[in-house]
């Protein structure tokens, strides 16, 4: 368990402001944010590589704020693998246990066990510069978990790998996390990675934690427009709540009325809708639980698996190639974009 209390750090280009986080034991916790948000700095401060200006870091119920890294019992995995180039794979993996003066036989048994587990036994005598990126990352994982850390910290562990290896190693990470019952803190700027791996996500921007929650909440209910556009909500509508009917808010957006689930009373709001939550059809599909807006397709961009449609009413929808073919969608065609009241997320408009 990690508790971060009111942490501040000014570090040249980066700075952390008022960080408060509680990460539960055994949780896979992802810190998601754009480059330069200070994610790595936060992770390095949990590991003890930098001192905070203010605030406290507790690990497993102990205040570790002033402890040096070697007494914190954390594992750290960098994006660049950071294997010791002068040691072979076994040497890298045994580095930690050998420092702790564990019996030679125990070290040997454990390191063999871990290499077997990660499928890198055949690499044991190779040197890091002869390994592929994915192999290096596996060795880095083995080296970190053999010391049985109470927390595993991962700094963008997948971003230097190609897509195929990313997919494989993502699975590996999830699996190691589960069988070793680790508390993991994973830092990334990749939304997909966060969505797939995380038990909970903290969104970090400009040195602050701006939202914490389950993946589904982060991606479907962002707290503000910045978070929304960062997590890929491409449709941001402005409107005004006119009233409620059966618990469903009636929102006036330009000339049309939309039905949405909202806790707010009347007032100006922003509405977030993800492009993949929009269903494109040729016929109107109106109901109290579903909104339908007419629009003309003005642009179609083929991304392979999905096609992005830009409508003249400003909405962006993504449809599969198959449904685009079935519906015979063409540029200039009139279609209906419909989305459920529950897939709209309504937030109060901030006054500037």
């Amino acid at each position, binding site marked *: 368990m990690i508790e971060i209390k009111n942490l501040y750090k000014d570090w040249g280009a980066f700075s952390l402001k008022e960080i408060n986080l509680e990460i539960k034991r055994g949780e896979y916790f992802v810190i998601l944010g754009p480059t330069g948000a200070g994610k790595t700095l936060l992770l390095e401060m949990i590991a003890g590589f930098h001192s905070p200006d203010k605030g406290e870091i507790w690990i497993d119920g102990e205040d570790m704020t002033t402890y040096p890294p*070697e007494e914190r019992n954390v594992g750290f995995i960098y994006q660049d693998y950071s294997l010791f180039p002068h040691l072979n794979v076994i040497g890298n993996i045994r*580095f930690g246990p050998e420092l702790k003066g564990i019996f030679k036989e125990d070290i040997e048994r454990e390191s063999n066990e871990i290499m077997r587990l990660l499928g890198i036994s055949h690499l044991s005598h190779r040197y890091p510069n002869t390994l592929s990126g994915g192999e290096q990352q596996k060795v880095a994982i083995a080296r970190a978990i053999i010391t049985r850390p109470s927390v595993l910290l991962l700094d963008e562990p997948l971003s230097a790998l190609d897509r195929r290896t990313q997919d494989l190693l993502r699975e590996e990470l999830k699996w190691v996390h589960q069988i070793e019952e680790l508390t993991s803190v994973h830092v990334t700027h990749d939304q997909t990675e966060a969505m797939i791996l995380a038990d909970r996500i903290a969104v970090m921007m400009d040195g602050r934690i701006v939202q914490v929650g389950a993946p589904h909440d982060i991606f479907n209910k962002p707290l503000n427009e910045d978070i929304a556009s960062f997590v890929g909500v491409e449709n941001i509508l402005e409107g005004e709540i006119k009233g409620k009917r059966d618990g469903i808010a009636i929102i006036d957006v330009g000339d049309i009325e939309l039905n949405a689930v909202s806790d707010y009373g009347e007032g100006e709001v922003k509405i977030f809708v993800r492009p993949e939550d929009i269903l494109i059809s040729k016929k109107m599909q109106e109901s109290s639980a579903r909104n339908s807006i007419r629009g003309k397709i003005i642009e179609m961009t083929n991304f392979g698996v999905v096609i992005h449609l830009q409508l003249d009413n400003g909405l962006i929808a993504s449809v599969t190639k198959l449904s685009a073919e079935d519906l015979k969608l063409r540029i200039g065609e009139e279609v209906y974009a419909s989305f459920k009241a529950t897939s709209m997320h309504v937030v109060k408009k901030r006054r500037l």
Partner: protein
Amino acid sequence: MRIKQEKMLIFFCMLSFFILSFIIIVLAEPIFSQFLFGLNDFFSTCRDPEVLSCIGLTIGTSFLATGIACLFGIPLAYILARKEFFGKRMVESVIDLPIMVPHMVAGIALFSVFNRHGMIGAPFSPIIRFFDAIPGIVVAMLFVSAPFFINPVREGFQSVDPHLENVARSLGASEWKAFYKVTVPIAYRYILSGIGMSWGRGISEFAAVLLLAYYPMVASTLIYERFLMYGLAGSRPIAVLLMLICLGIFLSFRSVRR
């Protein structure tokens, strides 16, 4: 099927050829002349006990100076490689100064500080004598060779990713252990290179040693004395011998460097 026009490179090669030939001729001519026309002189020089003891003294004192440079220079190089602090650029300039100060000026300065009445020479005179003594030679060599050690070692430490030290710390290494089990082994080529450069520079020094410690004679001083007494014929054999030794040291240290 070459692309036309590589005139510039050909011209550049010609110009390069001149300066390379200049260096090679200057260094090779004495060796060849000596071997062709004075092989006996050379061999008798190689057996001359005075020559051998001077060369031995030179190599030994320079090695001692390099040892001192290691002891004090490795920490300095590490701090410069890892830390940012106010005045860092000034410290870097200070380290480079002994390269830029004229050798004779360095000699006067060392003499001024380390002679029997000098700022350091005087208080230490009951314990240690620098003027015309081995400590004087070592001090002179240390002064001129320190930057040749510190600069490559610093570059070496810079080449070690701090992430590696961080990982070592998180695996349970204290800062000492991270330093000598990770940083030093990875940077060892640079350290060896620094030792070679500094050692060579120490052997090389003449002006400072001439002023501070003419006696006991090091190789350079001996060559100069023989040159004044017997001219080229008397001094060249020792010069050739010393050049070959330096080439040996230089090439063997160079071969370990990447």
